[in-house]
């Protein structure tokens, strides 16, 4: 029972972690919560349904197209709306509400195309479960874990091992100075939106396959937990998102397994609130002391 819950928690947690990375990366460079992130997440799963189930595009190509289209959508949002808002020196809240707008438009578009019922998401293969230490394990959970881990390693390398990541970190500290160092700040921001959204879409696809189902409300139910994971780990910090995602995933499954499935979200969030009271900047966030 314990091991079973642990594996399930890890799988769900990895998915939250990848969505959380989407929030975290954009926040890192722009200090902006991109609420369209969760809409792009479900869009990733819906695009699999559209391209594979309806249009019969080969599965591997479906995945690539879905990731690319979601990434491109976020780039469009940045270029067409967020960038002009920033240029006019508007307060951050304007850009924030703009992403809420995009999120609503995208989920409504999905509702229009796919309807409000839950839709089956096809998998690329059928897996036969196996038993390990008394737990029934779906091999796909291992794929989820591995994907999340590989993505995390790649992103950490990008952020801390390449000049692109260095530019992202520089922008987060001082965007004007970065631009005057000759860095094309808008290009770096575009890249960040693209990569962050690809992570969210990738987890959307994996959620769809894991639950074999997708509907537009997942944008909220999963999105809010991923957002909580990002805050819990310390938003803007990559490994924080990973740990935050896993903690939220494990909390949720253990609460469901040992206390009550019905109240799992409420209990998980109560624990989260308690953690934030003790560490307001998140588990890995720097505790900033206001100088007077």
């Amino acid at each position, binding site marked *: 029972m314990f091991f079973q819950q642990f594996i399930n928690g890890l799988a769900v947690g990895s998915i939250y972690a990848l969505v959380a990375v989407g929030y975290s990366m954009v926040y890192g460079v722009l200090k902006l919560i991109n609420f369209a992130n969760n809409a792009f997440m479900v869009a990733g799963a819906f695009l699999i349904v559209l391209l594979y189930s309806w249009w019969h595009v080969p599965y591997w190509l479906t995945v690539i197209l879905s990731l690319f289209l979601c990434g491109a959508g976020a780039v469009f949002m940045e270029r067409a709306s967020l960038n002009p808002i920033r240029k006019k020196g508007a307060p951050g809240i304007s850009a924030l509400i703009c992403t809420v707008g995009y999120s609503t438009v995208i989920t409504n578009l999905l509702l229009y195309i796919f309807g409000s019922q839950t839709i089956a998401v096809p998998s690329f293969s059928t897996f036969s479960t196996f038993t390990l230490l008394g737990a029934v394990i779906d091999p796909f959970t291992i794929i989820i874990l591995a994907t999340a881990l590989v993505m995390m390693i790649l992103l950490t390398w990008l952020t801390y091992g390449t000049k692109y990541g*260095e530019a992202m970190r520089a922008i987060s500290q001082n965007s004007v100075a970065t631009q005057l160092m000759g860095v094309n700040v808008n290009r770096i921001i575009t890249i960040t939106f693209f990569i962050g959204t690809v992570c969210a879409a990738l987890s959307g696809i994996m959620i769809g396959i894991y639950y074999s189902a997708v509907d537009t409300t997942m944008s909220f139910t999963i999105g809010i937990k991923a957002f909580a994971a990002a805050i819990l780990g310390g938003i803007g910090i990559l490994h924080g998102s990973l740990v935050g995602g896993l903690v939220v995933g494990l909390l949720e499954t253990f609460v469901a397994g040992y206390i009550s499935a019905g109240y799992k979200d409420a209990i998980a969030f109560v624990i989260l609130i308690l953690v934030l009271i003790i560490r307001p900047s998140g588990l890995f966030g720097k505790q900033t002391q206001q100088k007077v």
Partner: protein
Amino acid sequence: MSEVVLHCEKITQRFSGLIAVSDVTMDIYQNEIVGVIGPNGAGKTTLFNDITGIYRPTEGTVTFAGEDITGLAPHKITAKGMTRTFQNIRLFDNMMVLDNVLVGLHSANKASIVESMLRLPRDRREEKESLRRAEEVLELTGLYEYRYNYANSLPYGLQRRLEIARALASRPKLILLDEPAAGMNEQETSELLVFIQQLKKMGNTIILIEHDMRLVMNLCDRIYVLDHGMLIANGTPDEVRSNPQVITAYLGEEV
């Protein structure tokens, strides 16, 4: 006379009714140190922002190394060989001294994101060259021993120096220093004076905004004086010092 590096032609900057810079024309020649002085609010920093592309001048043109750069994006102007420092220090506080310098050098490198992630030959070559140049600049500016320290852990004078090192790294044709001595004590200011003189000897061309008159008068080949956005005088330190208009602007009219 040597070559003109920067030519500003009748630059005017308006902010919804307020005229911050008005009809300023100036020339900067190669290997000169030129001072821009004036009372608070005279438009000095606005002029710098017009030159470096942070603002687009309402009227007038900026010509840099023979090329019209008016209204170009700041990163493009930097890429053409113009760098600057800021009145209030703008370092990347939570990065090491070495990385602060590398940010500017990296922006000129061509390797794509895929090349960087896979460390392909071009990226490796560029990284090596950037690192070599960054260490060279740090040595030149006396910051080498602090290269692994975080920028915000440096004492104030060295933070200012790091800003200049960062501006210097990409071998710019022109460096703009916005109040490099602001907040410095006398000792630090004297060191800065020697340091900027060294930069000139190495062939750099420098424009600086400064309030410390001793520094300006000792350092600059020529001085432009702004008041209420307008150029009221220009010439050698001696000419400017004895200009009655300048004295009025600084000390007020006799009653």
